[in-house]
């Protein structure tokens, strides 16, 4: 079965550094998302991306965050200047398209980001 893949599985960085988390969504999916889970807390929506632009973002997704689809297969999340509170598991997800086909999200295994 097709799956969403994320790299790296673990990322350690120093506070203030830039990080890029990478994802390869399922190939025929049109919508892409980032969610995150801080340790011991709930999985939270960050951003959705469709047709090469952000379609919706949460209040968490401030100017330090950006997303990009640099080519036909990758979807990236960049954090410009990491803070300690950015430490979390970041999940990429994708879904097929419009309407009810977007109800079922396919998640990757996540990237555990640790900011020191």
């Amino acid at each position, binding site marked *: 079965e097709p799956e969403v893949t994320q790299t790296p599985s673990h990322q350690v960085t120093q506070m203030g550094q830039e990080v890029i988390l990478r994802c390869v969504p399922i190939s025929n999916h049109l919508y892409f998302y980032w969610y995150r889970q801080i340790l011991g807390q*709930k*999985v*939270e*929506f960050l951003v959705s991306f469709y047709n090469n632009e952000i379609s*919706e973002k949460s209040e968490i997704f401030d100017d330090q965050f950006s997303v990009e689809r640099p080519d036909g297969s990758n979807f990236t999340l960049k954090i410009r200047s990491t803070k300690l509170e950015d430490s979390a598991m970041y999940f990429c997800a994708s879904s097929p398209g419009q309407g009810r086909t977007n*109800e*079922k999200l396919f*998640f990757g*295994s*996540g990237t555990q980001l640790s900011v020191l």
Partner: protein
Amino acid sequence: SQQGEEDPQALSIQEGENATMNCSYKTSINNLQWYRQNSGRGLVHLILIRSNEREKHSGRLRVTLDTSKKSSSLLITASRAADTASYFCATVKRGGSNYKLTFGKGTLLTVNP
């Protein structure tokens, strides 16, 4: 409680027993979904129930939804050791985007062989 709160937080049962997990939420919803997460893995969609449905089945899974009580339950029958995982409910708010899920903290289910 916050949107999408599961209980219990942890549940330990013997193989072959049934496992029931509950979820409560606060706002009106379009649908409610259950996801499973095995340790170190991603979230896997299990089942979706819409706000106008009361019960749904998928294999050994049975989900109920009571919109008057703003609650849902997930029943796993004849559990197996492979069912050991964390289970999350996630809601889509009425009028909200289909993909914008609000998750609970999850129930950690351990099925002992």
